[in-house]
């Protein structure tokens, strides 16, 4: 076990010293923080100040009235930008540029309400009832969509690094002296564990950054209940998906001896991941669709589709357990086959090794 941790330690030390790692870590953190601010930017202004000359209208949500003595003073306040608009004698509205749409609606309804009240008529507002799932639907879809991207990039990025590390060691033949000191499973395991821990750090930065930013912007107030569950399921599924794809990447990587060949040898894996990504993206929008339901059970698609579906909708616990169990089985199978391929192919330098040859 000691050998594995030594290898993992070297992977981590080497990787965190590179600019690429620090930059991608900072960028992914900044990206989610920026995304947390987007709803606030899109929603526009949420409080208004209005100058009032003459009669003060009925109170309106988010609107503060300030009394002015005459129209000239009110108009000056509008021009100077001290207030968003001026209401003259409860009849005319003056604004500097185009009147803010929401403010217009607020003033209009306050005006009507005042007139209706004056006429003695009583109107009960419409009451709205929604299902429990629908209540946070848009936020859940947003979180799920974000999850798809984060999971996809972290998984493909980490798996790529595993493959590149394997090829680096094979291509430089350093693997021959490494294998004189440690067993293949320690070398491969150490690499996967080390780079996986860095992937988890990156995931933690993304989730942590997102949660802190969401709290700071007040977005967290709209979070559905069970946010902790979503976070935990994301981490667990990342670990499962990473275990599956990184072993696959290492096995494919061990077939070639040059970095230039990595991309082509990994194509089957990156294709699978891209399909998974697309399905997961679809599942974020339509979590109860047949495709999403089926593929959230089938490994390795489930590694991205299930956490996304869990975030977007309420998934029966039995389905989650079944899906996780299937994924664990698939991961163990890939681990056994992948370790076999790696053991046999990693010292066979030169031309690309055929998969069928080493699996026999």
């Amino acid at each position, binding site marked *: 076990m000691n050998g594995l941790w*030594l*290898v993992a330690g070297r992977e981590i030390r080497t990787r965190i010293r590179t600019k690429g790692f620090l930059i991608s870590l900072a960028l992914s953190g900044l990206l989610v923080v920026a995304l947390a601010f987007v709803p606030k930017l899109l929603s526009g202004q949420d409080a208004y100040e209005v100058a009032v000359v003459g009669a003060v209208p009925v109170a309106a949500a988010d609107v503060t009235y300030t009394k002015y003595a005459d129209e000239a003073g009110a108009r000056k306040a509008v021009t100077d930008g001290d207030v968003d608009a001026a209401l003259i004698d409860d009849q005319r509205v003056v604004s500097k540029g185009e009147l803010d749409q929401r403010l217009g609606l607020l003033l209009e309804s306050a005006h009507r309400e005042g007139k209706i009240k004056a006429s003695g008529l009583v109107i009960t507002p419409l009451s709205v009832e929604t299902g429990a799932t629908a209540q946070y639907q848009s936020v859940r879809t947003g979180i799920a969509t974000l999850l798809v991207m984060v999971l996809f990039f972290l998984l493909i990025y980490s798996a790529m690094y595993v493959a590149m590390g394997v090829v680096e060691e094979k291509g430089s033949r350093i693997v*021959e002296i490494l294998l*004189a*000191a440690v067993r293949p499973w320690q070398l491969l395991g150490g690499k996967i564990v080390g780079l996986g821990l860095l992937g988890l750090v990156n995931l933690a930065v993304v989730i942590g950054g997102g949660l802190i930013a969401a709290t700071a912007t007040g977005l967290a107030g709209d979070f559905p209940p069970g946010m902790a569950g979503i976070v935990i399921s994301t981490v667990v599924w990342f670990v499962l998906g990473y275990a599956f794809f990184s072993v696959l990447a290492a096995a494919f990587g061990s077939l070639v001896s040059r970095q230039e060949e990595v991309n082509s040898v990994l194509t089957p894996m990156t294709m699978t991941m891209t399909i998974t990504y697309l399905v997961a993206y679809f599942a974020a929008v339509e979590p109860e669709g047949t495709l999403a339901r089926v593929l959230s059970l089938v490994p390795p698609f489930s590694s991205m589709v299930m956490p996304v579906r869990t975030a977007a909708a309420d998934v029966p616990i039995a389905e989650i357990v079944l899906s996780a169990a299937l994924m664990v089985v698939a991961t163990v199978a890939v681990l056994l086959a992948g370790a076999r391929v790696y053991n046999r192919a990693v010292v066979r330098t030169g031309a690309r090794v055929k998969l069928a040859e080493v699996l026999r």
Partner: protein
Amino acid sequence: MLEVQDLRKRFGDKVALDGVGFAVRPGEMFGFVGANGAGKTTTMRIVMGVLDADSGEVRLDGKPLTYDSRRRFGYMPEERGLYQKMKVAEQVEYFGRLHGLGRAAARDAAGELIERLGISGRRDDAVETLSLGNQQRVQLAVALVHSPSVLVLDEPFSGLDPIAVDALADVLKDRCSSGVPVVFSSHQLELVEQLCDSVGIISGGRMVASGPVDELRDTEGRTLLKVVVRGASPGWADGLTGEVTTDGDRQVLLIESGDDQEILRSAVNAGEVEHFGRQRPTLAEIFREAVA
């Protein structure tokens, strides 16, 4: 004692090793020579467990090699391999730790070797910034850092300048004299002759000669009679079967010994005899003859 017994290995239709065997005693330096493609690297890779033999065995002190016994070997593969972006001292230390040294022991051993191999000025530089010769010294440090019980080095001297060759030879002799069997392959036959106690010559996957260098020089190849005559007229040796070369006013005759006294008489008659004696074959000559 490291014993290699009757190794056989095929790659597809090609027979790479066809019964290779030799033995290296503790404290013995064994030179493994052969033409390109003769099977040296394949043999060493099998000794190190990088490849599996089809049949045959490698034993250390009578016991078949296991992962744990190999872990105490020091190995330098033919194709050099280091982490290019890792620093020199850090890299040597890392390999020490992989071989089971503790943190402090690995650091001390790495520092000492780096000093010894004359690269202490580069200890904190990335390997990729070093010249090839210096990278090779790092490679050797990696092979030696855990004080191995057996050394297996594939072409350790290739590409080194004479000063580096001396530094490396010193370190190897040192390890050897502490009782470690050392096996190394090389094309530099003079160097092998000078350093090694024993040699093995491999050709086409078979051992064609092996044993102590002195013994081989006595038993393998032809021992020739060398006669140097000064001021002889050309054609003095026409009646003899040997080969004559001219060097200024000296004529050098190399001949298979037969009737030595008769040859001496002809030489004395022809001119002033400067040298008359048997010449044992050099390792290079034995090698050429064995491989031919």
